[in-house]
């Protein structure tokens, strides 16, 4: 009993301390920094390509390419949306999948998991901390893309009032606010993948296996989403409503798919979060 009380007494501090040390470990890793570097490079690549392509005055795109790309030349802020639309289907979830898949399985394969469990934090709390860290990574990764795109957009293209996809005009400040909102929605869209990755991570003691499985799922699910015969299944796939963030650029905003996306991500987080908890708290930690 006294042990349990001791756990409860120090718990808030412990949780916070654990979270902070987890954050530091995650963001100090070379691998994490490399992932963020790749994410930051995508907007630069897109921006420079559009700039070179339209240097002679011709318009970009012509219908093809990621969403919003034809508007980038008129307003640099659109590069934020283009970059997020380009990275959301693969780069962002892949980075999240790597970090989430490695969260527990990596510790297990490195033999550090049992030392983490020696600390009187408890397994549930450790799992929560890990999940919070992965979610923090989702947010940071999205913001890295958005900020990099904003910088590149401001350097290479003009800024100013922008036209929404409904044809109405909004001021640059409102455009910035919407860009921030879109970045947050994109970050939230990744929560489902994060929970899935964490669950996979509790299944194995090999970090590589967990990462490979998660990234494999990331490749498979969007393919399933493309097969028309499986349309009954589509609304339940985590990637189905991802591009709904573009609905924030309509005037008035079209909320239907956005709320569906948020609801679906919450369901994924609840289902796979609790599955991860069920697995992790009952698992034999041998390494």
């Amino acid at each position: 009993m006294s042990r349990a009380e001791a756990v409860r007494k120090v718990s808030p501090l412990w949780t916070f301390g654990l979270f902070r040390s987890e954050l530091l470990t995650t963001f100090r890793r070379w691998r994490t920094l490399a992932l963020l570097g790749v994410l930051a490079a995508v907007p630069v690549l897109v921006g420079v390509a559009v700039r070179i392509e339209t240097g002679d005055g011709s318009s970009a795109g012509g219908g093809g390419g990621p969403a919003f790309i034809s508007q980038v030349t008129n307003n640099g802020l659109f590069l934020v949306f283009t970059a997020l639309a380009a990275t959301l289907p693969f780069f962002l979830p892949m980075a999240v999948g790597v970090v989430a898949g490695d969260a527990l399985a990596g510790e297990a394969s490195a033999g550090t998991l049992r030392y983490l469990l020696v600390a009187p934090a408890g397994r549930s709390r450790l799992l929560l901390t890990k999940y919070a860290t992965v979610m923090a990574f989702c947010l940071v990764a999205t913001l890295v893309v958005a900020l990099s795109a904003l910088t590149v957009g401001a350097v290479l293209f003009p800024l100013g009032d922008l036209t929404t996809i409904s044809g109405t005009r909004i001021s640059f400040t409102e455009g910035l606010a919407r860009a921030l909102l879109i970045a947050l929605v994109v970050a939230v869209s990744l929560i489902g993948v994060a929970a899935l990755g964490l669950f996979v991570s509790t299944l194995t003691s090999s970090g590589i296996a967990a990462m490979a499985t998660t990234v494999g799922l990331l490749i498979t699910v969007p393919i399933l989403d493309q097969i028309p015969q499986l349309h009954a299944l589509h609304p339940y796939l985590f990637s189905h409503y991802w591009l709904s963030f573009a609905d924030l650029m309509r005037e008035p905003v079209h909320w239907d798919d956005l709320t569906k996306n948020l609801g679906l991500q919450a369901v994924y987080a609840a289902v796979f979060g609790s599955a991860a908890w069920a697995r992790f708290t009952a698992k034999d930690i041998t390494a």
Partner: protein
Amino acid sequence: MAPYESDDMTTASEVDEPRSRRRRAARYVVPVTVMGVAAATIGLVPAIADSGDPDLPEITAAQLIEKIAQSDVERLSGTVKITTDLGLPDLGGLESSLASGATEPGEGGSSADPSAKLTELASGTHTLRVATDGPDRQKLSLLENAAEYSLIHNGKDVWGYDSASNAVYHGTVDESAADREQQPPATPEDFAEEALKAVDDTTSVTVDGTARVAGRDAYKLVVKPRQSGSTVGAISIAVDHKTGMPLKFTLTPASGGAAVVDVGFTKVSFDRPAASTFDFTPPKGAEVTEDGELDHGREHSGKPENAPKSQEDLAKGLDGLKMLGEGWNSVATFDTGGEGGLPTGEAGGDLGGFLGSLGDQVKGEFGTGTVFSTRLVNALITEDGKVYVGAVTKDALVKAADAGK
């Protein structure tokens, strides 16, 4: 989770095997329950929302039609979902490649050309947004994936803006009403007007209870053909009980199955839309096509190659048009003039074989011909170049052709 905290500290070896295994399994009840609750909620919410038709005072069909006629909704904004399933052969990629070829800039078209864009509504499911403020200001937007096509009428300007390609179409109108009628029907109101035009003594019109559409109480008006032989099963129109505006239009074919046309508001508001909704200035760098240029381009490339072609052809065909029969079973007929008509069988080679495979060969007193069927409209093309088209069954079409001979 708190009660399990102490368990975390015990290792599995301290507990005897079967008990601990059962406990482990018990934990998976949590995710399974969460999944079950989520699935149940997703499944049940629409069912709950659907149930319970509103109680409204009794009304006769005549009164309801009168109500629709008197409806004078000047201001509204809302979201419309339109699903069309005409049962045309699915050409998939072929169709879209034809469409992109037709709207290629330089060939006289523009991706922001309204007539080209709105013909997309003829198949599949689309979400539209409509906003109206008096006769001079309307906006119709076609919501696409991460893009939108907007058609804005403000005063004497008509703007089309395609955000996917950042292309702008601009035209002017003198008479605001004239332009609207040329557009294909898109809202439930447009469809209802068309349907009620056809009401005569060959039609039964009844009020079939009430429904809730887009959160508003509505009467359901059911229009049915009295004669047999029509492919139209029933038309159901949900009419808002306050404003008399049609909120939902459903056309079910006589053959059963899914509706051929289903148009309905999913959200509607009768408040004045924000004035900024109708303001449009072409964004910097957007390609603007003026209406006149477009026509010029079309003439330049000889025959019209883009989407309006079918309409123009239809108009040309209408010159020699005769109507046979009456009411719902009326069949339109015209002579293409071409002796031999459609190449069928071996005579037409590969193409004939392909076209023949899409239709059915029929024989009658009129001779022989090919029937092309969709879920709503059937067409008979005879060997001597006559065309019979109508929303009637194949047999009725052959009968009409026999009678018309």
